């Protein structure tokens, strides 16, 4: 009998290998006294997750990262939709500036944009004589939403332009007006191609929320740094591994789901 080893088999074997190696390391480390480190992490886990020693109410920590990513994504979706359709506009006066803004934002380092927003947006906005304070959280949302919006817009543009030109021709030959063609024929098809891209983008944004520690908000990284000041140097590595795992546990399922959706969308064009 011939032994058949497929690509999927090899992939599964490698994945299993990695999981076993990690488990073995944890086991060996625990045997060498690492259990004490994990115990410290376990005691601090509620603070890391919720910013609150008793775990409730939610006031920061990883929960704040999630909330920040949701707010930034919502703002990015709004700005990105405007920008995306601006790039698809027939009018050059609309299209060219949109392309410029998109390219500028997309090619700027996220951290630099965050710092820029921190200093560009004033601490207080005076409106009709009333002074409104701008919290650091709002600056973090805006700073993260800008590059995300640019990527969001590119996903819209890419999906719309990937629709076969024959769809436009057929719709025009049936008497549809350009706006109706977008609304009734192009967007329903393009939307299915956008969703996996948006999910990947959201996962990237979630990872990038760790940068928001520079704005001083009490997110998981800020909390971690505060905690570490009180901890023994030997246990620092356990805390960082935990933080890494939190982000991984949140983002990896999203990436898996996005990949599955990508595959189900493939090949249904034409």
């Amino acid at each position, binding site marked *: 009998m011939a032994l058949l080893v497929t690509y999927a088999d090899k992939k599964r074997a490698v994945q299993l290998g990695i999981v076993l190696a990690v488990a073995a390391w944890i086991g060996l480390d625990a045997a060498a006294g690492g259990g004490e480190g994990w115990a410290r992490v376990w005691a601090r886990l509620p603070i890391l997750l919720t910013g609150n020693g008793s775990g409730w109410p939610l006031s920061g920590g990883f929960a704040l990262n999630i909330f920040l990513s949701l707010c930034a994504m919502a703002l990015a979706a709004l700005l990105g939709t405007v920008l995306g359709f601006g790039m698809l506009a027939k009018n050059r006066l609309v299209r060219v500036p949109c392309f410029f803004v998109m390219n500028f934002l997309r090619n700027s380092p996220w951290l630099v944009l965050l710092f820029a927003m921190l200093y560009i947006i004033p601490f207080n906005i005076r409106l009709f004589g009333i002074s409104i304070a701008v919290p650091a959280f709002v600056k973090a949302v805006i700073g993260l939403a800008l590059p995300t919006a640019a990527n969001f817009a590119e996903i819209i543009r890419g999906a719309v332009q990937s629709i*076969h030109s*024959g*769809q436009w*021709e*057929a*719709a*025009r*030959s*049936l*008497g*549809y*007006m*350009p706006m*109706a063609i977008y609304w*009734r*024929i192009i967007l*329903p*098809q393009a939307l*299915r191609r956008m969703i996996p891209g948006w999910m990947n983008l959201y996962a990237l944004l979630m990872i990038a929320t760790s940068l928001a520690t520079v704005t001083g908000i009490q997110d998981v990284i800020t909390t971690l740094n505060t905690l570490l000041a009180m901890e023994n140097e030997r246990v620092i590595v356990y805390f960082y591994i935990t933080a890494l795992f939190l982000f991984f546990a949140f983002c990896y399922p999203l990436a898996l789901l996005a990949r599955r959706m990508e595959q189900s969308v493939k090949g*249904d*064009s*034409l």
Partner: protein
Amino acid sequence: MNRSDVLIELDQVNKSFGAFQVLKGISLSVKDGEAVCIIGPSGSGKSTILRCINGLIPIDSGSIRVGTHAVHKMKTEKEMRPLRHQVSMVFQQYNLFPHRTALQNVMMAPIQVLGHDPKEVEVRARRLLAKVRLSEKADSYPGQLSGGQQQRVAIARALAMEPQVILFDEVTAALDPETVKEVLTAIRELVDEGLTCILVTHEMKFAREVADRVCFTDHGRIVESGPPAQIFDAPQDPRTREFLGQVL
């Protein structure tokens, strides 16, 4: 020839894509109820002629008249709407809308563009699907249909607009020889019913059978046109003879 019978008239139509001149003074008139086949080598401008007739491609000079519409004077999609109602088109790549079922594909434009009553349109759409022998596929999505079935849905979709003219752009070129037959049968019925058709095709046998007139194009010109018997059996132009010698 009685002028009032002429439904479509092209006069000295020129069209260039960049530096490449696709159409070099095309003149063609098609009478109401006539079936005209356009044959010729690839890149000779056959498909471009069709796209100019329904305004998908604007022309550089010359004039195109369809019924009472002066196509060459229309600038916006809105002005072209009545023309699109009168002239339908079937494409080589079917171009069905993949997110809608066969029945919805046929019903969409009459409801959304022409504003016809949905109930009345559904009756019409089911009748048309039956006509192309696809009643049982009404609720299938284009991706679930074979090429020949998709093309017949596309024909039903074109008919649902109740056009006076249908333009067929190499509708069998993407199909295998067996399914070509089912599509050609559907087209032949339309021609027999007296619908005005302009067909760009590589099916010479079919052209000879259904066409009232055959035009041979080469390098953006209509080299020769006449009844099928004359074009296929006694071509006058050496270029026509050369082309037919290769394909027949």
